[in-house]
């Protein structure tokens, strides 16, 4: 609030350090964020961006260093103090009460007094003023849960502004947005900047950084490695800074030689536990030796599609054919049977699904296949054999650190994904279904994982790839389908333009409607 008088930087961090046990998340970080600018912070997952922002927002306290807000030394022990210093945060996963109206959400935590009436009136007035000032209109009485994600995010931003935020932190704001919604967000950020607000944008998407920021800082392994004026840098320089070496962004591959269909899904309808249809009449076919990519903004039924096909969750209607086996998906789920028919599944979420974090690497390497006779010796599991096989895979997939006894939780994201990948690929399945193969994985591992997926294809397997990263889908797939609101919107070749796919992802079927 007192920032008006001050002309220097909005935020200054000096020598910030933070460790979690033996893990150093932030190391001696210096950062200067100019007032009235959009400052991007970019880095791979696990580079320490979120930790740094959590320190700024009071979720964690730094072990060392100091924070200056508008030139004044600030002590931020909790998020209340952060709000008082004029910092607002828009989280990746919105902190909204779905069943409350917009105005109720805005005033949450700032109700003012025991009775609500006055608070609601004040909030409504202020909301109207903010909407006009920043050109961010939302119906104050709409129920938040019924709004599209783009608008929910706007409510989050308004909430921060309502609390008097001069500095806005946005944590991976476009992860849940369609390209069109993301563009709209950038326009809003533009307005905020013109109004003198300071924006900190956390992302791992280079394009966004180039598009909207004034200045960009790059983090790598807990350290701030560089700060550049956006106009004076390039995507390839930033990518290099992020990983510490130059990266191959394109995937090399030969044209596909598709054979007979190995995976067929017919008339799949899936309802979630709340009775909402998440997959609507989806049918698809994947042939041997090809990769079918499914693109779409996350939350449009891809997860449910994967779970139904892999036998984890029951479907309302639909059947799947693996090779010659026809499986009715409306009966009892049986992920084990799917594996027996030759399907392997690298799940979207390795923490929740693909791994048991509390288990050792070796134990995780047999998860789902532990019933196979080769892993047993009489009544007991053959620990020696399991360890030996796990060690072979560690060497083959270059999993680091090379330990079969380390708990899965202690491996980095990329290495965890390699553990899952090794387990599923080494089965030599006919059909491989993969969800978000490189989510939260560092660029070095991404290259490796992409190469293995292409290898599976070239070995004549049918690969079904689901990813929210459009670049990934476009560079790996031989055919692309787009899902929107549970429906398969259409099929395109890998040469389809980003705009074309973007429209399908936004639910626009014919181009005239755009």
């Amino acid at each position, binding site marked *: 609030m007192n920032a008006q008088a001050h002309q220097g930087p909005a935020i200054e961090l000096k020598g910030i350090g933070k*460790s979690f*046990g033996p893990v150093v998340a932030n190391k001696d970080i210096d950062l200067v964020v100019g007032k009235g600018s959009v400052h991007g912070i970019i880095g791979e997952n696990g580079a320490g961006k979120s930790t740094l922002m959590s320190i700024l927002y009071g979720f964690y306290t730094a072990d060392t260093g100091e924070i200056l807000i508008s030139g004044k030394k600030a002590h931020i022990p909790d998020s209340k103090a952060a709000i008082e210093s004029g910092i607002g945060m828009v989280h990746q996963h919105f902190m909204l009460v779905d069943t409350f109206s917009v105005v109720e959400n805005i005033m949450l935590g700032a109700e003012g007094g025991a009775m609500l009436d006055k608070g609601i009136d004040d909030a409504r007035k202020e909301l109207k003023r903010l909407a006009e000032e920043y050109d961010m209109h939302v119906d104050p009485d709409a129920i938040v849960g019924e709004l599209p994600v783009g608008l929910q995010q706007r409510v989050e931003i308004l909430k921060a502004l309502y609390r008097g935020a001069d500095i806005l932190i946005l944590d991976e704001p476009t992860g849940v947005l369609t390209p069109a919604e993301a563009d709209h967000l950038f326009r809003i950020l533009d307005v905020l900047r013109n109004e003198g607000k300071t924006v900190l944008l956390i992302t791992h998407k280079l394009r966004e950084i180039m598009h909207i920021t004034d200045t960009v800082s790059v983090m790598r392994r807990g350290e701030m490695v560089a700060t550049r004026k956006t106009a004076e840098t390039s995507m390839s320089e930033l990518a290099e800074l992020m990983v510490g070496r130059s990266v191959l962004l394109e995937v090399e591959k030969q044209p596909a030689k598709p054979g007979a269909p190995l995976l067929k899904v017919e008339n799949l309808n899936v309802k979630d536990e709340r009775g909402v249809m998440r997959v609507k009449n989806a049918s698809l076919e994947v042939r041997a030796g090809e990769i079918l990519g499914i693109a779409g903004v996350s939350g449009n039924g891809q997860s449910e599609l994967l779970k139904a096909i892999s036998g984890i969750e029951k479907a309302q209607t639909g059947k799947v054919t693996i090779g010659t086996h026809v499986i009715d998906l409306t009966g009892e789920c049986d992920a084990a049977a799917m*594996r027996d028919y030759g399907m392997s599944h690298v799940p979207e979420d390795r923490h929740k699904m693909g791994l048991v974090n509390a*288990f050792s690497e070796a134990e995780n390497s047999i998860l789902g296949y532990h019933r196979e006779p080769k892993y047993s010796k009489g009544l007991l599991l053959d620990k020696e054999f399991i360890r030996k096989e796990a060690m072979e895979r560690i060497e083959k997939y270059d999993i680091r650190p090379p330990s079969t006894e380390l708990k899965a939780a202690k491996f980095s994201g990329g290495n965890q994904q390699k553990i899952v990948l090794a387990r599923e690929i080494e089965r030599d399945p006919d059909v491989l279904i993969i969800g978000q193969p490189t989510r939260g994985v560092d660029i070095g591992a991404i290259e490796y994982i992409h190469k293995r997926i292409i290898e599976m294809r070239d070995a004549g397997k049918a690969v079904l790839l689901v990813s929210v990263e459009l670049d990934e889908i476009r560079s790996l797939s031989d055919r692309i389908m787009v899902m929107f609101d549970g429906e398969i919107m259409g099929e395109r070749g890998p040469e389809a333009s980003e705009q074309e796919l973007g429209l399908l992802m936004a639910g626009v079927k014919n181009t005239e409607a755009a």
Partner: protein
Amino acid sequence: MTKQGQLPRWVDYGLLPALNLIAAFIVSGLVVVVIGEDPFEAVKWIVYGALGYGEGVGFTLFYATNFIFTGLAVAVAFHAGLFNIGGEGQAYVGGLGIALACLALDAYMPWYVTMIFAVLGGALFGAAWAFIPAWLQAKRGSHIVITTIMFNFIASSLMVYLLANLLIPQGSMQPSTRNFDVGGQLPLLRNMWPTLDLGQSPVNLAFFIALVACVVVWLLIWRTKLGFEIRSFGANPTAAQYAGISPVRIIVVTMLISGALAGLMGMNEVMGSQSKLLLDFTAGYGFVGIAVALMGRGHPIGIILASMLFGLLYQGGAELAFEIPTISREMIVVIQALVILFAGALEHMFRPAVESFFAKISQTKQAEGAA
């Protein structure tokens, strides 16, 4: 950033339980001071009563046997992420199975034959009593904590009815079965090894059955496919489902095993010591099993140690109440409750502090290594 598993094993399994225990004893000591007695004197009597002479040791082992069974029962369920509060009821009904085997066979068979049927009977009845809550949890989502607690009450009423109306010998005024003959009695250790000087203590062969159960549970949980599935389901149900592990099957099978282990407690009390089925013979051992399992970190070795500790408190406490009359039976229960409170409910009290302490140490070590 995971909290668990950052500590060295000896801290997690040794130092933390010890700290909890010390805290419990300090608070207990204060209670003793408040009523005007010398806490060190009290400690002396507890230790002497439990370990100072043969009979005391025998009683300590006898109580520990009960706790091993009920502790294992809670631990097995815990590995599947299930909180089985119904050990008390399962042990009670399991006792019925044991008693029925003894009543049927004691006149015709030697004890070692009866024992086999008693073990089967106890396990079967205990498992059966755990089956209904397990089924309700697996199929209907009824919370197992609630249902197992309620089944304790149902077990209690059922046993009163059975003992007072059906199993009571004609003409008897006491709601219990008749005494078993020798064919229905486990040998007492004091008779097996007279040289051991175990006094009149009731510690019996069931102690070794409990130790065997520990080995079986260890093998089951850490060395078999079923154990792998149980632990997968407990640590991450979503991953278990992804791996094709049926939640219904795991919940039901785990609870059957858990109930069976609780049911075996009667081997010690019914067949080992009292030679008849008595009203309320479980006397809360089922509940203490929860604290034993927590303190023992769900591992059979830990459970044996925790059981010994609680056995010591039970026996030493009785001695203390006898020697210092101002410290009544109720006071002893308070001390035991404090141990349960600190070891069980407040288990995570010291953890954050100890964790940050060891994090600092390892940091300095790394810094030194780098320098």
